[in-house]
């Protein structure tokens, strides 16, 4: 099962995420976020940051996680390649994110994002696990 794919969505960009289970879906979401902005495989894991998000549904947690990643990128240019020590309940998502402080001179750049939208945001159970689509405003 591929972890994610990046899709076009009219003038914006989106990701379709897959995971055998929900924690894996969230890990793939974090990786997809990095791959939309830069190139995931070129981002090393040299610094660590604990991420914690609250919400009332898993969709809210997923959107909240991606919004946190966007906030960290926009304010501190942090970009992450690995996500470990996942804790996921109905109302809380936490992980240890490992990555770098992104620098345009050192790492590739693909697309800048303005926001994580709720358009088409739904986590679905599929044959081999879970799938979700998230569209970003560019």
């Amino acid at each position, binding site marked *: 099962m591929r972890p994610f794919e990046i899709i076009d969505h009219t003038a914006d*960009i989106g990701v379709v995420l897959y995971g055998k289970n929900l924690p894996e879906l969230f890990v793939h979401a974090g990786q997809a976020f990095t791959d939309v902005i830069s190139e995931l495989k070129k981002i090393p894991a040299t610094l660590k940051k604990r991420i914690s998000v609250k919400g009332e549904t898993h969709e809210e947690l997923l959107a909240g996680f991606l919004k946190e990643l966007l906030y960290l990128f926009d304010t501190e240019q942090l970009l992450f390649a690995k996500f470990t020590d996942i804790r996921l309940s109905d109302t809380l998502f936490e992980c240890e994110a490992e990555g770098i402080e992104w620098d*345009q001179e050192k790492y590739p750049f693909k*697309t*800048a994002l*303005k926001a994580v939208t*709720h358009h088409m945001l739904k986590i679905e159970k599929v044959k081999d696990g879970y799938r979700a689509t998230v569209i970003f405003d560019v």
Partner: protein
Amino acid sequence: MSLPIEKIDPYTWRLPKEGAMRVDGIVFASEKMMEQIREDMSLQQVRNVATLPGIVSHAFAMPDVHWGYGFPIGGVAAFDEKEGVVSPGGVGYDINCGVRLLKTGLSVEDIQSRLRELVLTLFHNIPTGVGAHHRDFRISREDQKAILKKGAAWAIEQGYGDSADLEHIEENGCITGADPSLVSERAYERGRNQLGTLGSGNHFLEIGYVDEVYDERVAEQLGIPLGTVTVIIHTGSRGLGHQTCDDHLETILKASRRYKIELPDPQLACAPLQSEEGRNYLAAMAAGANFAFANRQVITHLTRDTMQKFFQRSPKDLGIHLIYDVCHNIAKVEEHLVGGVSRRVCVHRKGATRAFPPKHPKTPALYREIGQPVLIPGDMGRYSFVLVGTQAAYEKTFGSTCHGAGRLMSRNKAKASCRGRNIEAELAEQGIFVRGASRATVSEEAPWAYKDVADVVEVVHQAGISKKVVRLKPLGVIKG
């Protein structure tokens, strides 16, 4: 998708009221454009907007319409101040994304003889691209709050421009009623280093010149006759605005449920204008809008300063004057005549531009005889246009018109189409020097990824909702 649609004239189409629609939809487009417009969901989105409470007259779509979140981009809708709603989706994430036009006293030869060097200097001095910020310019939280309250005036108080600039900015560069306390900590943090920065994506600064004139008298009165060298600045409220929209969208979505507003699409989340949530959104939106006005003012100052030093000319000699600055993502309470009666309505323009007529009190005094300037940027390889607002727009579309070209090709398709091609080199052969912060953005923004803005402008001109004045040809572009 087959939706009922009636042709009114070669440039105007009606989506008749049916089902939950409270008013008709009106689309401004040519026959050829309609074939394309029908391919995405934008017409259905126009119909959805027409279902919202308190909508007045029609739900409009301009010829650059394309699919957006809830409201289409290139959409205009006005809601009664007392009975109607306000919707963040009717403004967009990039609050007060807008366009500013400067004129200069330089000649085309002045620019062409040192084009590459000038563009690189501007690129160096104006932070462009992701994470780019000023290293020697810090603003405090108190400064940020003052910016959100005062808009462009704050920048001028700090020495970034002249008070004469204010009259040449929509709303004099400040939307009143802004409340900085309704902007979240996250939004402040995202915007902390972003004042005076261009951003990325389709934002840019472009040096060009007037290469075609359609109305000589009006061009002279605007101060942009044939050959005038110009600068276009296209940017918005940056991360501060995007976060503000996001924060209030969550509140407004809950409010929609509480006020039992039926939504054909949850992204049309809205709240009554008279509700606390509605008022709070407008006050926060105004704050975001003021940040964008200040942003464009600071970038103008950086442009003036760079060009003065580069050309070693005095400000008077260089003659860089602000022609006008327009919003194209905004919601404002305005007074309009509806059925001959004056009404206060909240006009949402999402990817649409205000186009007020001659003699309107909000049209700057200098332009009162000719109408408010309307600035329509195209892609970086072709051209942009300057138009003026008309009485017809004021009567038909709440004084509104189009905003730009609209994308034809998705970002990935645009990038794929550029593989094996050197866009910068191709543009250089046409005499256009582009400096992008990244190859990826330049590819995404390749000229052929966009509709031809000349077609868009022709529709609004023929429909009478704005009048063509001049065309601007690009010479040098900086992009994020």
